[in-house]
Structure formats: structure tokens, C-alpha cells
């Protein structure tokens, strides 16, 4: 299946042709999204629809724009062209009185962004807070949860990631794998509809990757969470994802089920990349 490429990548509320095989509104939609750093085009008129509950793995050579895609969806990068929608609503844009899309104000941005959670390569825990505080902070301050309720939620999630005995520890006292599991619990505590995983095992020693991937695997099985994952772990992508996108030069060069993409890649670039990865491992 090929994503329809919009010829003009302009800002327009008509978001590409209808896709009869997916009649429902996607949970995440990139339409003609372009991001440039000076001369360099990192996202090049990208189109991508992700359905609710779908697990999408994004693979590709470094510098191909994979992480930028997630970061744009988390509003950590501003996009230059196109529209990103989350759960049917434009993220960085909003309709004005006449229905035209204009730049979103802070309120709109915060409301739509609340649907998305992210886990980073470098964990980014708050070093001055205990594990429990790390997970409680945003639910209390952002969602306005009572402390007792936030505490309960934090302990529940930390138990789910297997860290119920580390509640009072500080991040520096934990291994990388443990820190990353706290970061997952912290993101989940905000009850996002979409979770983004940005190379979450890349900073970990190989023997610690498993514990993190297991948590993500369980998460995928237990919840109807929409997940986008940038990863170098081809084995995990193959087993976990519903769909794998191969990213090259700011676009999705090829995509399909793990079986299609890994076993019968159609594009030369994809084959080259996969064989390079196989040689390396």
C-alpha cells in the first residue's frame, strides 16, 4: 500500500484522497508536512495516517527524519508546511471564524497536545524528584488530579512497569532500563491516546533493552493505545508493529506489514538498508 502523495504540500483542509479501506477517521494524520532546517529538508511533504490502536514502527537511516516526525507530533519542532491532526483535530493549527486554518493559540495547542505522550531516548526524568514524584507531577499540575488519586495512579503504573519497590528512589539511583520504565509510566499517567517512542532503547546497554521492550509489548497488548515508534530494533519492530514504515530522505519510502517490508521489500533503498542492518547485527 502506498501513501497518497499530495502534489502541492500546501496548507489545505482537504487532506488527500479518501481511503475506502480505512473509512474511520485516523487517530494521527500527517498531511503534506514539511520541515526544513535552512537548506536541509527533513520532512518532505510527508503523508501518514495512523488508525486508532495501530502500532506503527518507523525505521530508516539516521538523518532520514524519523525522530523529527515524532518531535513534530509532540510539538517540539515547528513544521513549515502541512497539517498534523490528532484525533480529528489539527494540532498546530485551528480553524478561525471563517473555517480557514490559522496558527493555533496556546490553549488549542495544549488541549490537542494532551492526547499525545512521548518517551525519549535519554529518558529525561526530573533528576530532583523521586520516581513517584516524577510520575505524579504532571497529573497533579496539569490534569488537576488530587494528590491521593495521582499517587494511586503513579503506584499502579509503576507496578505495571515492575518498579513498585523503587518509588522513593531518585533517577540517578536507577539503571538506564529502570529509568526508561519510569519515563514510560510518567507518560502513561497523563492517559494519552497516542504514545510516541523515540529510540527508547538506543541509550541502553543491550542487556537492559529487553525489560523496556517487554513493558512496551505488554502495553500494546493490554491497551488500545495508538503507538508510533522510531526504532533500530528490527526484531522488535517485526514482532510488535502492525505496520512498518521505511523512512528515507524525509518521506515514507516504503511501508507495509512487517512481513511485507522485512521479507519482500520492493524498493532498492529498503533492501540496502535492511541488509546493512543485518550485517551490522
Amino acid at each position, binding site marked *: 500500500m502506498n501513501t497518497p502523495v499530495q502534489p502541492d504540500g500546501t496548507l489545505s483542509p482537504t487532506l488527500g484522497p479518501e481511503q475506502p479501506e480505512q473509512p474511520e477517521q485516523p487517530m494521527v494524520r500527517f498531511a503534506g508536512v514539511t520541515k526544513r532546517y535552512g537548506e536541509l529538508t527533513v520532512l518532505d511533504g510527508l503523508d501518514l495516517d495512523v488508525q486508532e490502536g495501530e502500532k506503527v514502527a518507523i525505521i530508516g537511516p539516521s538523518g532520514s527524519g524519523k525522530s523529527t516526525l515524532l518531535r513534530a507530533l*509532540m*510539538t*517540539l519542532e515547528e513544521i513549515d508546511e502541512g497539517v498534523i491532526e490528532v484525533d480529528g483535530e489539527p494540532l498546530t493549527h485551528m480553524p478561525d471564524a471563517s473555517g480557514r486554518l490559522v496558527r493555533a493559540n496556546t490553549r488549542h495547542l*495544549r488541549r490537542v*497536545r*494532551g492526547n*499525545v*505522550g*512521548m518517551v*525519549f531516548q*535519554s529518558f*529525561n*526524568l*526530573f*533528576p*530532583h524528584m523521586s520516581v513517584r514524584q516524577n510520575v505524579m*507531577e*504532571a497529573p497533579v*499540575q*496539569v490534569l488537576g488530579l488530587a494528590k491521593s488519586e495521582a499517587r494511586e495512579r503513579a503506584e499502579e503504573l509503576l507496578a505495571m512497569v515492575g518498579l513498585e519497590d523503587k518509588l522513593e528512589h*531518585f533517577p*540517578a*539511583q536507577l539503571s538506564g532500563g529502570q529509568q526508561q520504565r519510569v519515563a514510560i509510566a*510518567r*507518560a502513561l499517567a*497523563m492517559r494519552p491516546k497516542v504514545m510516541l517512542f523515540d529510540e527508547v532503547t538506543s541509550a541502553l546497554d543491550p542487556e537492559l533493552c529487553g525489560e523496556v521492550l517487554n513493558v512496551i509489548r505488554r502495553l500494546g497488548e493490554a491497551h488500545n493505545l495508538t503507538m508510533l515508534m522510531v526504532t533500530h530494533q528490527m526484531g522488535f519492530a517485526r514482532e510488535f508493529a502492525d505496520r512498518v514504515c521505511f523512512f528515507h530522505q524525509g518521506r515514507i519510502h516504503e511501508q507495509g506489514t512487517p512481513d511485507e517490508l522485512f521479507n519482500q521489500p520492493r524498493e532498492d533503498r529498503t533492501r540496502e538498508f535492511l541488509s546493512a542492518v543485518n550485517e551490522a547485527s
Partner: protein
Amino acid sequence: MNFFDWPFALEILPRLLDASLATLGIALAGFAIAVVLGLFLAIGRRSRQRWLSWPITGLIEFIRSTPLLIQVYFLFYVLPNYGLQLSALQAGIIGIALHYACYTAEVYRAGLDAVPRAQWEAVTALNMRPWTAYRDVILPQALRPVLPALGNYLISILKDTPVLSAITVVEIMQRAKNIGSESFRYLEPITLVGLFFLILSLGLAWCVRRLENRMEPAR
């Protein structure tokens, strides 16, 4: 040669002690305002809103580039022409507070710059408001490393309070000069003033160190 007159020194000691309390009070009050105001200036300077960041940057550079003495003169002798009458003590405290707020703002800026960008990305991903992010996440990490620098400014402020004698604030230096002009003896009052500053500075330095130690995270 005029040797140190101990009975005279003892006689003027209570008056100097009294004035040293004024010095300490002015320094603490000025510092208290400066550390709070400086923080707001630092955060305002980092704002992406240029209508906010540019005037603050200008103010900081202006105040840091002009002498404290001229600033307190301005507050005390010029502002009344425009209908703002400040007492010498008010003008002195405000002058010191403003002056040092601009210095502490630069200290805070260094501390804020040292907090990794990734922490900002984490608070964005958790949808936190900027104010909450500053209060709960960014400032606690930014402040600890800059506490010693802030403490040094408390001691600088203390040592700058004699400037206020120029606008008739009766702090310790003004009192010593008065004693000198009454008795024609300057050796004892000025020596004592030096000693007082030494003791006060060492005392404050000790307090700052204690505070730093208490702020060490429990790990």
C-alpha cells in the same frame, strides 16, 4: 604617632554597633528584593516575546554599566523633581535592590541555561504550563548550582552599603564619619568599621555555606 585609643574605641562602640544593624538590615532587605526581582528579570529576558525580553535586556545592560552611586543619587535627588519623594533609606534600598537584581539576573541566566534542553522537552511532552514547569522542574535544577554565586552578591551588597552614606543614610560608615568629625579622631571609628565588615562578611559567608549544604539533595 597617634596610637589606638582603647577607651575611646570602647566608648563609641555602642553607636557603631547600632549603625551596623542598619547596615545589615539594608543589605538583607536589598538582597531579598534583588534575588526575587533578578529571577523575574532572568525569566523575562528568556521570554520569546520580544516586547518583554528586549526592554529587560536593555535595563539589565544599562544598570550594570552605570555606577551604583549615580543610581542612588538619581533616586534620591532627581526623582523628587518628578514628584516621587523617597526617604534616604527607601532610595538606598531600592537602589541597591535594582542594581543587584541585574547582577543576580545574569547569575540566574547562567543557571537556567545549564538546565538541559531535554528537561524542557519533557515538560512540553507532559503538557505542563510554563509557570509550573519553571517552579517545579526548571528552577529547582537551575538554582542549586548558582547558590554560591548568589551568596557572593549578598556579601558584595553588604560591602556596597557605605555608598549610601552619600545620600545621608545613617549606616555604619556615615556614623563613623560623624564620630570622626565630632572628635577629630578617625583611627578608631574607621578601624572598627573595617572590623565590623570583616565580621559581618564572614558571618554571612558562613550562613550561605550552611544553606548550600542544606540544599544538597538527599541521595
